[in-house]
């Protein structure tokens, strides 16, 4: 962790909200990406991301400065997302009635990079397909896979974030990867 970040956190511990704003700016895109890929819906992901930062601010005293700040923050975001998924599972699952409509505000996701409409369409369909496959993963595989392939984190970092041994992280990634393979390719026998 760099010195600037250490200074910022010191200030936040004293209640400096401007310093906290800088931390939010640093990490908001990563936190949002984790939440979005976990829950599959931009609005819910935004709410969860906000909640993650508010929690981080309110519990900054619990942050151990010997560890990476991002590890601690991503752990809050991952746990909030998992809690959210569990709550959603136990409540009447209204969103299950209209599959494929979640996370559809793809205009906010797709970069405006001058693609032709056809290319955009293909990209959009791909995005939706991949997102719906991520969503089929059980949550413990999903979080490991998201941290690894969306955030590109090391197995050690993932183990710190999820508070499980590296060996368990590997098992979850291997199983998640195998499930994705089965569902995403014809070789796996198509839809599971």
């Amino acid at each position, binding site marked *: 962790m760099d010195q600037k970040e250490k200074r910022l956190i010191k200030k936040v511990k004293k209640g400096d909200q401007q310093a906290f704003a800088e931390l939010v700016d640093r990490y908001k895109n990563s936190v949002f990406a984790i939440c979005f890929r976990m829950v599959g819906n931009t609005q819910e992901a935004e709410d969860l991301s906000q909640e993650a930062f508010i929690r981080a*601010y*309110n519990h900054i005293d619990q942050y151990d400065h010997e560890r990476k700040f991002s590890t601690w923050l991503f752990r809050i975001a991952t746990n909030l997302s998992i809690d959210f998924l569990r709550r959603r599972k136990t409540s009447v699952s209204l969103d299950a009635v209209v599959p494929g409509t979640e996370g559809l505000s793809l205009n906010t996701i797709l970069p405006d990079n001058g693609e032709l409409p056809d290319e955009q369409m293909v990209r959009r369909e791909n995005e939706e397909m991949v997102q719906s496959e991520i969503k089929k993963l059980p949550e413990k595989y999903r979080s490991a896979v998201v941290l690894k392939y969306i955030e590109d984190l090391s197995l050690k970092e993932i183990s710190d974030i999820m508070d499980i041994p590296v060996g368990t992280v590997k098992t979850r990634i291997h199983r998640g990867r195998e499930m994705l393979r089965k569902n995403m390719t014809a070789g796996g026998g198509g839809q599971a």
Partner: protein
Amino acid sequence: MSCASKKYLSLMNKVLDQEATEQEERILYEHLANCVECRAHFDELKYSTDLLCRLAHPQLPAGFTKSVLAQLPPEKRHAIRR
């Protein structure tokens, strides 16, 4: 996979996790050159994770940081307030 797949599956995982030794990598690639099924399996694993890696990072609305700050408890200003 119908060949002695367990061994190669675990090698595939090691290679994909970037934890394989050079020798293990060589053993796997030599096998893949001769085994259509294992090669297909390995390619499929790589294909699926490549798709994940290529997902665009979603964009947050511009006012995100502001809206987080607005929800924080009032700033402590010991020096100013009495």
